């Protein structure tokens, strides 16, 4: 244990890793604080760069950039009422109300302080949860893996903030995309339409860049430019945060726990954690009437929650290759590329790398406090960059980055195509996160499904015979029929359904 820890320290105290963490932190802070550029997009655009780094440095950039971007989203939320990332949308109103009351320092300070606390709590959960789960997972056969992957996909559809039917449809679209190529049980070209470029299948990373970056540029074409941030001087950022920590200790802990749970659930990420925690904070608050008027309590809970979910999202990713959220989906791609294939054996064979990941999370969350304060002070300069100068650079990064992944110009075609797909889906209420999970997990779910079927000679019974498989199956099927039950129940009760009016 101590030996592995020393090795892990040696792994991360190289110049390459230190520079990677610092550069990725600054990058994450800037992208996260620009409205309309999400943390997932920041991470996806970083992947081509990670190709040329050592495994630990590559993971370090992902960890640092995603952690910083989630916090940095709070900055324009508080100063402009425009969340920098979707994860800050839940409490942007509240933070802006505080700014108008003249408490901008307190709101932003709470953002940076409780984000760091949440991030460290999430890391602790990763350290505590992952190794024992790995022990259990070692005895898993393809039946368990199939149900686990299935359950993961169902979770992703349950937590989506849209119609579950559309979420399931999105997931199926993703799985269908994963069918493309010759990497299937028969080794025959499937859905390639005679195009050799499609033989290798659709790489998840260009698809992700398309869905999260190109679609965002497309949306920017149709939406008005956000107003520039007013120049202002800030007082002490961290003043009063310790008092808040003591006063809202329970809220903070609850935010951490909710964030960890939502992070572990596949498909549900930081934005979901923030919405749930903010709602919870309001529900259980002693002074719910103050919410919405510039009250710091909800910020404490939701700010801790969204950062806690980032680290705990790595638990299912590292153990099973099932992404906890869209950022973890990108991280899985990087892990595979760097020879750290996700799986329970990772924790025994590459224990020092795992400890290095924990350490990087803790370091990233600690340096977030000074870097975050600098970023807050510089915000009025950085956020003056008009969209018409940022978006063209994003476009170039999309083109070059997707080319760099395989030195193949076809990657750019994939990016453009998925930009359109992502845009149309999002406009019509189909959650793209569910599709992304389908793409990432498609090969794995097909392999475990077909191998299980071959083992069982086409019979369905063995899918339920092993105890853990049976439990997972029950949960997965429950998740599948839950929306149906709710729908039937609502029909029977004949409550006046709030019509989803077309915009």
């Amino acid at each position, binding site marked *: 244990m101590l030996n592995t820890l020393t090795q892990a320290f040696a792994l991360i105290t190289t110049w390459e890793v230190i520079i990677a963490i610092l550069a990725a932190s600054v990058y994450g802070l800037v992208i996260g604080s620009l409205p309309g550029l999400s943390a997932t997009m920041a991470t996806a655009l970083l992947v081509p760069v990670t190709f040329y780094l050592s495994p630990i440095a590559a993971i370090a950039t992902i960890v640092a950039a995603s952690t910083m971007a989630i916090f940095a989203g709070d900055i324009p939320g508080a100063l402009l009422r425009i969340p920098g990332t979707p994860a800050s949308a839940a409490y942007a109103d509240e933070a802006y109300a505080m700014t108008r009351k003249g408490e901008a320092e307190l709101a932003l300070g709470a953002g940076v302080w409780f984000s760091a606390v949440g991030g460290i709590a999430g890391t602790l959960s990763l350290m505590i949860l992952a190794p024992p789960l790995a022990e259990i997972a070692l005895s898993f056969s393809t039946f368990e893996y199939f149900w686990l992957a299935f359950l993961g996909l169902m979770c992703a559809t349950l937590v989506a903030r849209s119609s*579950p039917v559309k979420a399931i449809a999105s997931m199926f679209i993703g799985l269908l995309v994963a069918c493309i190529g010759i990497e299937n049980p028969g080794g025959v070209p499937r859905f390639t339409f005679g195009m050799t470029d499609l033989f290798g299948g659709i790489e998840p990373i260009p698809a992700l860049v398309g869905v999260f970056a190109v679609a965002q540029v497309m949306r920017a074409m149709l939406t008005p430019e956000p107003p520039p941030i007013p120049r202002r001087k800030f007082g002490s950022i961290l003043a009063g945060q310790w008092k808040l920590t003591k006063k809202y200790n329970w809220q903070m802990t609850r935010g951490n726990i909710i964030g960890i749970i939502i992070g572990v659930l596949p498909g549900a990420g930081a934005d979901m954690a923030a919405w749930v925690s903010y709602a919870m904070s309001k529900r259980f608050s002693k002074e719910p009437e103050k919410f919405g008027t510039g009250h710091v309590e909800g910020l404490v809970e939701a700010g801790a929650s969204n950062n806690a979910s980032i680290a705990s999202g790595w638990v299912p990713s590292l153990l099973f290759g099932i992404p906890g959220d869209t950022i973890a989906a990108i991280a899985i791609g990087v892990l595979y590329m760097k020879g750290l294939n996700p799986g329970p054996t990772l924790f025994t064979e590459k224990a020092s790398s795992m400890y290095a990941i924990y350490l990087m999370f803790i370091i990233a969350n600690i340096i977030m406090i000074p870097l975050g304060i600098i970023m807050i002070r510089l915000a009025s300069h950085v956020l003056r960059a008009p969209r018409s100068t940022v978006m063209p650079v994003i*476009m170039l990064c999309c083109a070059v980055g997707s080319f760099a992944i395989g030195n193949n110009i076809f990657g750019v075609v994939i990016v453009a195509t998925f930009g359109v797909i992502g845009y149309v889906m999002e*406009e019509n209420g189909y959650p793209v996160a569910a599709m992304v999970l389908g793409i990432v997990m498609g090969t794995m779910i097909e392999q475990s499904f077909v191998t299980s079927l071959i083992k069982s000679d086409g019979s369905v019974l063995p899918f339920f015979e092993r105890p853990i498989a049976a439990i997972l199956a029950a949960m997965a099927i429950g998740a599948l029929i839950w929306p149906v039950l709710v729908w039937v129940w609502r029909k029977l009760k004949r409550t006046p359904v709030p019509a989803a009016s077309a915009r």
Partner: protein
Amino acid sequence: MRLPDRVTGLFLVGLGAAAAYGGWQLPPVPGQPVGPNVFPLVIGTGLALCGLAIAFGIGRSFEEEEHLIPVEGGQPPPPTSKLYGLRALLPPALLLFYVAIADRLGFILTAAMIVYVTSTALGARWKVALPLALLAPIGIHLIFSKLLRVPLPPGVLPMPW
């Protein structure tokens, strides 16, 4: 680009049916009961069923309206003519333009055009767009070609490094 649920639902029914049919046509692995055909069959069927449900409006009541935060003091809402919506297709079109032309024209020139068009489309004046179109491609070229050794096409204007 907001289409009625009936349209997207029926499109998914078609896509699912095509996928199931395409999967069914695939050759099985000799001597094995399941091969590459099973998974697309299952997925396609599921997708078609979901499409039907969407077309008939099942699950609509779950949809939450997006919490749109109105921008205070922003510009007036954009005009909503049919052609205006097509602007959204500009970014993917520019990327396809890059695919078609980058090898012949080279990275720097193609990238400069993409930057200039995107920037102008987002409302920048030429005083901003032109310097950006000159500097951004060179910067990206430095990072990706020099630092990360991505073989970007030199075309008619190779960079001196």
